């Protein structure tokens, strides 16, 4: 065999690496059998079977995505059915609408929901709590909420997978998944396994056919 990997073991999953906790997502994805890749450029985005938008500052991630010509390609790939998972800032980026955006702040969109930034409060109110997530077997996950958003309201197509104190904190719509908390900061990779399963179902690269 000449060139290219001899044996593709799992889908190639990008992590949007403009800013945020990229490394933790790369580690979690590798742990559940995906082939992780950093994505900072349109041509890198074009080469992935799925994408994670990490935790970070949503205003910063938006500005960098806009400045480096990633916003429209991201929207196009979401419209075309790319599986995407967003945690915290990533959840904000996947929301169709932000209740309290900074002036000019836009999202990629795709999930019919309105999110409220920093809804659980500032850093002093950041917390850990157990969260039951529908579709994640084996008991509650450790939810790490850091200046976290919550989902203010959802449209009919969005399915609420988890709530905390009455507020939706995990949502799925088709091939899009979003959590207000950070599974990547724990050693528990079940949410990433759920996401990689969504990619495989969607027909992302599997097996040894070498693509």
């Amino acid at each position, binding site marked *: 065999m000449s060139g290219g990997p001899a044996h593709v073991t799992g889908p190639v999953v990008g992590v949007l690496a403009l*800013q945020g906790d990229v490394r933790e997502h790369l580690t979690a994805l590798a742990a559940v059998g995906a082939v992780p890749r950093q994505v900072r450029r349109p041509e890198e985005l074009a080469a992935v079977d799925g994408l994670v938008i990490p935790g970070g500052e949503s205003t910063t991630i938006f500005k960098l995505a806009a400045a480096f010509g990633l916003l429209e390609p991201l929207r196009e790939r979401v419209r075309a059915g790319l599986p995407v998972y967003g945690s915290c800032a990533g959840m904000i980026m996947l929301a169709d609408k932000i209740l309290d955006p900074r002036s000019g702040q836009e999202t990629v969109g795709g999930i019919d929901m309105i999110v409220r930034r920093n809804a659980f409060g500032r850093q002093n109110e950041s917390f850990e709590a157990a969260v039951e997530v529908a579709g994640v077997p084996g008991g509650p996950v450790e939810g790490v909420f850091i200046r976290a958003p919550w989902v203010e309201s959802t449209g009919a197509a969005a399915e609420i997978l988890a709530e905390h104190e009455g507020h939706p904190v995990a949502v799925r719509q088709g091939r899009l998944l979003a959590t207000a908390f950070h599974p990547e900061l724990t050693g528990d990779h079940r949410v990433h396994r759920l996401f990689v399963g969504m990619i495989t179902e969607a027909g992302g690269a599997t097996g040894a056919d070498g693509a």
Partner: protein
Amino acid sequence: MSTPPSTPQAPETGTARVKRGMAEQLKGGVIMDVVTPEQARIAEDAGAVAVMALERVPADIRKDGGVARMSDPDMIDGIIEAVSIPVMAKSRIGHLVEAQVLQALGVDYIDESEVLTPADEVNHTDKWAFTTPFVCGATNLGEALRRISEGAAMIRSKGEAGTGNVVEAVRHMRQIKGDIGRLRALDNNELFAAAKELRAPYELVREVAELGKLPVVLFSAGGVATPADAALMRQLGAEGVFVGSGIFKSGDPAKRAAAIVKATTFFDDPKVIADVSRGLGEAMVGINIDVLPEGERYATRGW
């Protein structure tokens, strides 16, 4: 829509994971010193991941002399009000009450900083006693681990703030990364002696030897003035950058701030760094460290 089961456990605030995890969210980003709400908005609009609220930037603290203290609470409130990104503020080394006040004001991170005049020449603040996380400066691995053992949830190089000269930040970052590299090469028997030499707790020394990195996020600070400076610090291993006087002491702060943000993300792409470095106007005037009298060097404060 189905109703998911309710969560079984009471939420817990101020955990080590929540404090350290906050810093993980800042990685790849730029934290900018600001002295007014207007500057804070310029920083946020330029893509800063957080702002550091202070009364005078380090360059002015140097120029004015005298005792440098925690900022006025009204000024901190004004900055918290002005932006949606996290707001940090500085307390003097060992000044427990300034730190308590900053926590009460609701800042998102406290910088126990050598840029302010130290309040205690022996003890740093017990940072485990706070819900608000702390970032502290370090010049080498032993100092970083002493701060972490006191509860710091994030470490930054000290550099030499307010000089516009990156040489000290480079020295500290190379020292910390070099110290970590040397630990990696030791066997388990040698780690005890290494801990003694580093004057740091054995458990932390062993953790660093295993991880090959600090157990908390490592940023660079002190003397960053250009996009290339920021990218240099990232290439040397910093996970993000603090910029103090370098932005608002320059000719076109908004443009320079946005350029430093872009260079921090594309730190390994010289074409991007070249593009963003064009037409930035005057950089801040620099000071050569070797002309600074010993008493005016901030990096020697703290231990």
